[in-house]
């Protein structure tokens, strides 16, 4: 229990990590930690350093400063490799092996029973194509095969680099279902992604990298609160009352009958009271909280004032 007291129950602990590539620092002083069963999204624009960070955690590339511990092991150690699984950004398998053969090879390398392979392929929806060569797979099918190898042997830490690129909406949904199952079984999951909307309900915390620096890391609610982005209120006036509503509330009159307002979270109730006070002059009200896109733009574009 001493280990827990020191915070070593973290599956992944990244401390002040630095990576230099050529003259540039591509990852700057990044610290983050993941607990068992936690799902974290890693966001950032192209070239922000997401892949580089993941590769350092895997021990594929050297760390130039700071330290990384994978459940107490150095990245790339035998022990660390046994409990970690990885889905690369672009999945590349040998095109003349069948999906099943490729998965069997990974199972043997991982020291896992080979008869677990077919059920895994079924789980990712590749049962039909299991005996076809990977060369004949579509991009989404290769991505699914990549996901199947992630599930081999119930990893304790899963690092997924843009796992949903190339997947159709239904597949994306299935994919996040699988991520939820993994997390429910205690796997810590780090997902890098550009597909913001799909992450909203699917992650416990969100980390945002900007040119190698971690600019935010928190739950979605906390990020929202801290950013203090305005809530948009769309008011639809009843026939012939548009001018009256716009006059009473201020805000922009959008077209014949719509008025758009914005306010901060703590003024929301006051604004709503003012709207309901107008009685029948208001036909409808929509509240639009700041989306992940807005938040991302706020933190990643440097509006956070750092």
């Amino acid at each position, binding site marked *: 229990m001493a280990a827990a007291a020191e915070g070593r129950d973290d599956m992944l602990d990244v401390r002040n990590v630095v990576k230099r590539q050529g003259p540039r620092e591509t990852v700057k002083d990044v610290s983050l930690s993941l607990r068992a069963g936690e799902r974290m999204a890693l966001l950032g624009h192209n070239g922000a350093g997401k892949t580089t960070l993941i590769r350092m955690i895997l021990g594929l590339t*050297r760390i130039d400063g700071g330290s990384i511990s994978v459940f107490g092991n150095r990245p790339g150690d035998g022990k660390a490799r046994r409990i970690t699984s990885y889905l*690369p950004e672009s999945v590349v398998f*040998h095109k*003349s*092996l069948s999906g099943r053969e490729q998965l069997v*090879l990974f199972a*043997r390398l*991982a020291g896992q029973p080979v008869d677990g392979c077919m059920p895994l392929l079924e789980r990712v929806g590749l049962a039909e194509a299991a005996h076809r060569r990977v060369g004949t797979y579509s991009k989404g099918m290769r991505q699914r095969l990549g996901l199947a190898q992630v599930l081999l042997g119930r990893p304790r830490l899963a690092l997924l680099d843009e796992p949903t690129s190339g997947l159709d909406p239904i597949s994306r949904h299935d994919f996040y279902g699988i991520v939820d199952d993994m997390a429910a079984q205690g796997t810590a999951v780090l997902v890098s992604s550009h597909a913001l909307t799909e992450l909203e309900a699917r992650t416990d915390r969100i980390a945002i990298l900007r040119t190698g620096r971690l600019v935010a890391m928190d739950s979605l609610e906390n990020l929202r609160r801290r950013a203090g982005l305005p809530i948009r209120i769309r008011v639809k006036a009843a026939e012939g009352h548009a001018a009256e509503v716009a006059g009473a509330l201020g805000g922009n009159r959008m077209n014949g009958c719509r008025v758009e307002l914005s306010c901060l979270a703590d003024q929301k109730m006051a604004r709503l009271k003012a709207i309901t006070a107008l009685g029948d002059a208001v036909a409808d009200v929509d509240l639009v909280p700041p989306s992940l896109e807005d938040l991302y733009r706020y933190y990643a574009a440097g509006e956070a004032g750092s």
Partner: protein
Amino acid sequence: MMRRIFAIAGAELRIALRNRWILIATSLMVLFSLALTFAGAAPTGALGVDLLTVSVASMTTLSVYLVPLLALLMSFDAIAGEVERGALALVLTYPVSRGELLLGKLVSHLVVLSLAVFLGFGIAGLAAWLAGGVGGESLAALLRLCWSAVVLGASFLAIGYALSATARSSSAAAGLAIGVWILFVVLYDLGLLGALVYDGGGFFTRKLFPLLLAANPADAFRIFNLSGAGKVALASGLAGATNGLPGWAVLLSMFGWPPAVLALARLALKRVEP
């Protein structure tokens, strides 16, 4: 450890089978060996040796060129190609060491090479036997040719892996492999020959030349099969060219190259960032 090596070797063999490498290498060897065996049918009477003896001599000369070429073609892409495809990065996140990966590939490539060599030369032997030109001594020479060709292949497989781990890209590795092939089987001998002519029978010719010749694995293979007391030496005309060469030098070169270069390849692989 063995499990992982064999897992990799098994997958690599499947790939070699599917992309026709086994077929190409084997039919190449069969074709050339058969051609040489029947082309050799003419001079047998004159030398007083059987058909297989002559054919072993010509197949040795063929192997000096063909076996290193096949080995380099199989191995040059082994690491650089995987790095380029990004496959190495994924494999190395599994609990498999880089050494195991290298050995797995070596095992599968050796199997392919052995298949090509034993089938190719075996069929040539069979043809000679059908033609009635096989004796005990020539059969022993054939066997010796077969396994020493595989050892020769191992040297060049290892060289190929070392190049592949050093090169920045797959195409650069291909270029290096061709360069190495030309250097070892063509330029090296030409250079030595030039030095011989220049030296005109001095210290170099008597002491250094035989050792330098044996130092090249391809030449060591040639000496091992063509010189010595046997009738093959008579058929090849190489007898006497390597007088003054201690027997251990040839064996050391043949068996020393594969592990030494493999160790180098392992070192180079250690520095590869996938």
